[in-house]
């Protein structure tokens, strides 16, 4: 049982799956922190019953905002070692998280990003594959990092990384923002193979493909603004 690593799970209306996800994580990690992003279902109580520490946004703000709330808590909390970010919809494998924490400890890297390209993906829809390819090209261009995957919810962050990253994009554009923070704060980073299972549930819950345009728009305007 890992006592110092904290698993951070942002969630929004995931009551039907988050209980299982938390229970599975609890077999390996002592502390699970769920940030409930203003869910209208009983995600919060389900997660609490499953043994997670639950933070609640009074209103829905977006996944980036939920992660930042978790980072704020963990950077203040003494005794936090590594932080794992883990999606609530059950698309990640707990075994991958365990392996990534081990790899992160071994190498001492600040940011370890999960990568579908190095690992494998089951039942990925074609539209999603094309969308991710475009998102990846954009992320590489805007961050200057030789990434093989982006928008993968599974990451392992050091304490230093948690303190350096400040997510201001409330929505999904935070993924590229987080990658940019690596360059700006000169954090060390690496990628680790992961497996993503596109279940019927995660496909239904996942963001719409059209949202890719919003992500690109948000990030481009942010880049232009910071360049001015």
């Amino acid at each position: 049982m890992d006592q110092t690593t904290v698993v951070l799970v942002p969630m929004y209306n995931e009551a039907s799956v988050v209980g299982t996800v938390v229970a599975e994580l609890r077999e390996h990690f002592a502390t699970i922190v769920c940030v409930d992003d203003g869910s209208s279902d009983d995600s919060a109580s389900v997660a609490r019953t499953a043994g997670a520490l639950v933070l609640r946004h009074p209103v829905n703000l977006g996944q980036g905002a939920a992660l930042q709330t978790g980072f704020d808590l963990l950077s203040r909390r003494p005794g936090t070692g590594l932080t794992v970010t883990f999606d609530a919809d059950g698309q990640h494998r707990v075994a991958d998280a365990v392996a990534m924490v081990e790899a992160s400890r071994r190498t001492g890297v600040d940011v370890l990003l999960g990568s579908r390209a190095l690992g494998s993906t089951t039942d990925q829809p074609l539209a999603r594959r094309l969308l991710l390819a475009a998102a990846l090209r954009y992320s590489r261009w805007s961050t200057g990092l030789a990434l093989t995957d982006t928008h993968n919810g599974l990451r392992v962050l050091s304490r230093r990384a948690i303190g350096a990253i400040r997510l201001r994009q409330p929505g999904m554009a935070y993924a590229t923002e987080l990658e940019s923070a690596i360059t700006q704060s000169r954090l060390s980073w690496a990628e680790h193979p992961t497996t993503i299972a596109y279940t019927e549930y995660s496909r239904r819950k996942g963001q719409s493909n059209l949202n890719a345009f919003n992500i690109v728009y948000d990030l481009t305007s942010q880049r232009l603004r910071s360049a001015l």
Partner: protein
Amino acid sequence: MIIKVFLIASVAMAGWWLLRSSGGRQLAATRLGGLLFAASWVTAVMAPDLVSRVANLMGVGRGTDLVLYLLVVAFLFSSIAQRQRLRTVEERLATVARSQALLELELARRTDERERVPES
């Protein structure tokens, strides 16, 4: 003639609404711009020929075209200003929601501690 009454009344109502609803944070520039707009609007309605003459001076064919162009520019600026305001408000909302979430947790923790004391 009826249209003139209607147009002037509408801008007068807008002006009244602006003055009534403005809080202390309203910038003097915005107020001045609003007053200037109202004045030029009334002038334009009273003397349409004047607008046409100004339009011709600026190289625009008709007075109505000039009004339309100015309207488009004004709309653009106002949309951008609104967007930025909304963004600031959203960031503030995130900060408030975040601190409330952290506070709630802290409160729950302290309540737990207090409940545990008598047992030990």
